[in-house]
């Protein structure tokens, strides 16, 4: 079994055998390895056992986690690694060498293998991480079209994954006009953000004055024109 030896000023304080799938290290008493020192964050780092490997991850701690004097975000632990947290050192001792040798082949394979992290544990950790994080997780944003003229629509929130703009009655944003396409343009929410696409009709689509014939990712405060309609795109934070 792998174990950690907690040391301070070259003095051994305590030994911690690694008995679970994951452990956390930090100042708060809920941690598996508690280090009561102000240089240590509440939840400072964690170690996950994946296959026969041990992965150390810094939980965005204030003062960082170091392995053998190198600052790390995540690190695959090897026998004899010195983990420095605040003023304390944790020595990592791998399971017996023969045990390791037989497992090492599986280990490389395991890292290439897709695995699912225990969700309950992970949610717990992520929520802790959020509390600790100096910059809180980005708030959810939603796109808005703000009409500048030519319409009394005011503002339209882009709540759907795909918003159709045009003359057709099925359009989420309905615009009139002799030459307006049934669906003149669409705005879709993609992994990379909002994208506007010219879809059809004789009314041209312009973004910041440039005619768009295909697709274009939208940025905050882009000006979109469809015939005499003019509106601005921006994203606002929502609950």
């Amino acid at each position, binding site marked *: 079994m792998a174990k950690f030896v907690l040391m301070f000023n070259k003095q051994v304080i305590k030994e911690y055998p690694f008995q679970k799938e994951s452990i956390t290290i930090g100042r708060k008493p809920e941690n598996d390895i508690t280090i009561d020192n102000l240089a240590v964050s509440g939840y400072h780092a964690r170690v996950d056992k994946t296959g026969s490997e041990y992965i150390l991850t810094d939980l965005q701690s204030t003062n960082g986690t170091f392995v053998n004097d190198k600052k790390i975000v995540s690190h695959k632990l090897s026998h004899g690694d010195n983990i420095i947290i605040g003023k304390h050192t944790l020595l990592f001792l791998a399971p017996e060498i023969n045990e390791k040798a037989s497992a090492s082949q599986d280990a490389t394979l395991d890292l290439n293998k897709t695995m699912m992290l225990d969700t309950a544990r992970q949610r717990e950790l992520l929520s802790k991480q959020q509390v600790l994080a100096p910059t809180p997780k980005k708030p959810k944003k939603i796109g808005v079209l703000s009409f500048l003229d030519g319409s009394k629509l005011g503002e339209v929130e882009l*709540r759907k994954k*795909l918003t159709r703009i045009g003359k057709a009655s099925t359009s989420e944003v309905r615009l009139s006009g002799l030459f307006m396409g049934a669906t003149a343009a669409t705005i879709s929410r993609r*992994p990379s953000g909002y994208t506007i696409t010219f879809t059809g009709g004789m009314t041209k689509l312009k973004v910041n004055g440039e005619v768009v014939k295909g697709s274009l990712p939208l940025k905050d405060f882009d000006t979109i024109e469809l015939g005499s309609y003019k509106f601005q795109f921006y994203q606002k934070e929502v609950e």
Partner: protein
Amino acid sequence: MLIKSAGITDVGLKREGNEDAYSADDELRFYVVADGMGGHLAGEVASRIAVDLITKTFRQWSLAGASSEDLFGQTDPSLSMYGNYLLSGIRLANRVIHELASSDERYQGMGTTVAALAIFPSLVIAANVGDSRIYLVRDGGLERLSKDHTIVSEQIEMGIVSVEEAESSPLRHILTKNLGSSEEVYPDIFELIPANNDRYILCTDGLTDLVSDDEILDMTAMANSPDHLCRDFVDLVLKRGGHDNTTVISIFLTGIQKKKEGPIRKTGIMVADLWFAIRKGLRKIKP
């Protein structure tokens, strides 16, 4: 609209079994890949259930024009009805795999990723859970239509690690979502309008581990048929060591024609432009 597609799955050079599964149905225009996980045969079972059940429910609900009461779980108002069929099918597959995994010892810890794509003449729906991906190649550019549910991609979003660091991170294969591990699942779903000459790629991480996004773009843009493209992807993966199962579906879309612009139409456009120009001019003159 014309669709040509091809699918391929390869066990690779290091693994004994193939835990990937896929389905490419050109009639239904519905495509799914899944990468199973879990010991013994459990991974294969999970990915097969996901592919079959999601395809089957999508077909049934589409044919029947199912209403929200027929679906599994609450409908998502941000999605089209077809988007909800896909969402509901993924939820159902998750529940089935989850219950099997928690009731049968042999299937303990079983799970799977999934990436699914549905194509209609005026709508494309892409959904995924886990790290199997969906790419769109359009106008010489590549776009991901899926979101990786891994610790590493969450770390990138939080700004803790860079994209370069992520590529070699030991955590890159640890999923934060899959089908099977919990009772509820929240897939990422995107909807967009298809365009002529769109090319879509669905794949498992066997491909994306060894082939970069830039290479996927180049190979897809240059390919002359979906079959050749799939074959070329697998050949490249095997040349680079093929440590995992690899599954790829390539879909080439043609025949989505914007109406031809005849002389009358062209004149119409000119008149329209003139009209707007005059109106704009008039508005400026008015106080």
